[in-house]
């Protein structure tokens, strides 16, 4: 309804996980499940956050879990296009440096 996740796998094996809506205590378990699915046997995951209007600590925790999971198989794990609001929450958690962030204003490029 107000939350949706889609997974698109490219020919390279890299999966783009597109998140739409608000990531909170209610919806982050679904996001975690999708990240786990996307990481299974793939080359890695790019989490497209352009459609995320809100994220709370459980959402950040979920992204950390995804990052750790990817680390186990040395798969890539990147965030794409977080809105200023989402970026602000990542900064509040002081974990921005931990993540590879694609997209305008990201430390790892534009």
């Amino acid at each position: 309804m107000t939350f949706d996740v889609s997974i698109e796998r490219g020919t390279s094996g890299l999966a783009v996980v597109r998140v739409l809506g608000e990531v909170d205590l209610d919806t982050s378990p679904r996001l975690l499940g999708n990240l786990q699915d996307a990481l299974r046997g793939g080359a890695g995951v790019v989490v497209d956050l352009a459609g995320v209007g809100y994220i709370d600590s459980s959402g950040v925790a979920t992204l950390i879990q995804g990052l750790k999971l990817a680390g186990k198989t040395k798969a890539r794990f990147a965030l794409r296009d977080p809105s200023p609001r989402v970026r602000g929450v990542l900064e509040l958690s002081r974990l921005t440096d931990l993540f590879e962030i694609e997209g305008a204003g990201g430390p790892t490029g534009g």
Partner: protein
Amino acid sequence: MPSRAYLAEVPADASCLRAVRAFAAAVLAKEQIDESERLVLALDEACANIVKHRCPTIEDGRICVRLELTDATLRFRIGGFCKPGDVPKVKPRDFADIRPGGLGTAFIGEIMDRVAFEPDPERGGAMELVMERARRSEDDV
């Protein structure tokens, strides 16, 4: 000037957090409060803590939120937040300790000026979480 109070009460379920956020965002917009997005986050984290840590232990749990505004201060009161004995447990982990969990209270601490626990006048045996921030209007920035 007397404080203006806004109340919302919803079942203590994760699926109800969005309604509390929508209400708080509209109230803060009406009151022309600066940094309302961060304040909504702090409130949401406190409410989420009730769902995660408080409600598994009580039946028919509710989230009761009170927003009090004066010309100088913005105060959130979250009713029935925890048992008196739980107060010492409510604290963030070290930011250096990177793992999921422990972030919510850290966010609250970063965003609010003052966080305190007071005996809940309406729920005997429970503590109310009281969070305050000096009110900054958009002109102060």
